[in-house]
């Protein structure tokens, strides 16, 4: 270990060489390399955490760049996990980075989590959060939770030394469409930065044995008035007794696949020869269409899947964004490709702002 590199934190009273050594020996799995995952990964890696796992199957989109500050314009369309690992390696060549370029699923979660000491929940959807919770309870690993809503965020440390879990706070998983995600609701770029950094701090405290953990406490941060609330909550014994995963994590389709792309980004996609599938009718397509788009009317989509290259991101386009969303729902049932996107507002929106 290069001591000079970490001198400023080794000098810090209460942390010291012992703290640095603990970071070096620590193994942390970060699920999600998006808004929350980026600051978590960047700081853990810079501070000297020895082994970091990155789970993400998403690709970088233009709409990610305002908050996922590890990625650059020329990363659009590339795998987040791979790009992140590449940049983190350049940031700190000492760290061991394990890339899981896949979604976290019921099938792989136990295998991944088993190899690490702690898990960071930096996901953007409920099914994955409940999956992480249950897997961590089964394998007795603490996990550091962060989540966002608009200008607000939540942070907590679950399953720490017999402390409460996510299910002690919210026992039942919300249904699909019950609550909006960042794509629908919007997010101010810096908020995930703040929440992700709070998570990273909890990870470091946990590893180095510093201070008091946010265990049994939910921190609610409000960016609009810079206020923090800490809510105490308690473990419910039944939630600590989970022995196996549920058969079904309801609507388990990570909502990253439901990602939408702003119509304003369409010009860039066209310039980059992205795979854009126009799902309007023959009549509409004949009347007007964009160059270099693939045409498959939505009614014929399921019988023409072979026309689509699922190794590449698929951008679905229609007139107003409604049918492309439906098409996305059809496709997501059948494929877990590099990413499925619906172009928000469709051609109407594109023509309104780009022509």
């Amino acid at each position, binding site marked *: 270990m290069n001591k000079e590199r970490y001198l400023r934190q080794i000098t810090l009273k209460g942390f010291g060489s012992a703290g640095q050594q603990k970071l070096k020996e620590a193994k942390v799995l970060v699920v999600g390399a998006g808004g929350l995952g980026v600051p978590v990964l960047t700081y853990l890696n810079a501070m000297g955490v020895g082994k970091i796992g990155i789970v993400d199957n998403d690709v970088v989109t233009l709409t990610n760049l305002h908050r996922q500050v590890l990625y650059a314009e020329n990363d659009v369309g590339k795998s987040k996990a791979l790009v992140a690992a590449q940049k983190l390696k350049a940031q700190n060549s000492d760290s061991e980075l394990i890339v899981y370029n896949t979604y976290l699923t019921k099938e792989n979660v136990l295998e991944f989590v088993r190899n690490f000491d702690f898990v960071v929940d930096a996901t953007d959807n409920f099914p994955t959060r409940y999956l992480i919770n249950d897997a961590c309870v089964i394998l007795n690993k603490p996990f550091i939770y*962060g989540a966002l809503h608009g200008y*607000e965020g939540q942070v907590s440390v679950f399953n720490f030394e017999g402390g409460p879990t996510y299910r002690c706070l919210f026992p039942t998983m919300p249904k699909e469409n019950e609550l909006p995600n960042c794509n629908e609701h919007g997010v101010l770029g810096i908020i995930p930065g703040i929440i992700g950094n709070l998570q990273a701090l909890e990870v470091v405290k946990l590893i180095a044995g510093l201070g008091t953990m946010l265990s049994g406490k939910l921190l609610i941060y409000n960016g609009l008035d810079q206020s923090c609330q800490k809510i105490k909550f308690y473990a419910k014994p039944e939630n600590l007794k989970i022995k196996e995963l549920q058969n079904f994590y309801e609507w388990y389709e990570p909502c990253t696949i439901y990602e939408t792309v702003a119509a304003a980004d369409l010009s860039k996609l066209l310039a980059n020869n992205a795979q854009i599938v126009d799902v309007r009718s023959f009549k509409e397509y004949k009347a007007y269409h964009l160059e270099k788009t693939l045409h498959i009317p939505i009614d014929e989509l399921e019988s023409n899947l072979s026309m689509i290259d699922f190794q590449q991101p698929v951008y679905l386009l229609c007139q107003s964004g409604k049918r492309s969303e439906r098409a996305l729902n059809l496709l997501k049932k059948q494929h877990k490709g590099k990413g499925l996107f619906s172009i928000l507002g469709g051609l109407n929106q594109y023509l309104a702002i780009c022509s």
Partner: protein
Amino acid sequence: MNILLFGIAKDIVGQSQLYFSEGEDAPSTVLELKKKISEKYPEFRKLTSLAIAVNSEYAEDHVSLNGFDEIAVIPPVSGG
């Protein structure tokens, strides 16, 4: 009775706090509070899980409320 709203609760009500005047209008338990909010703002009915905190502590449905309590309505949030 002053109620702080977080996450989607804030969006549903359209403001960050909610008041119940003393007397008949004020709910006397957490369960009653949930019912009253859902009556006033039906969109709350579709929420599967809704945490309520009384004086910065998670409160089960049976916990009783009084006018001086600081109450928080905390729905789950999923963004990341």
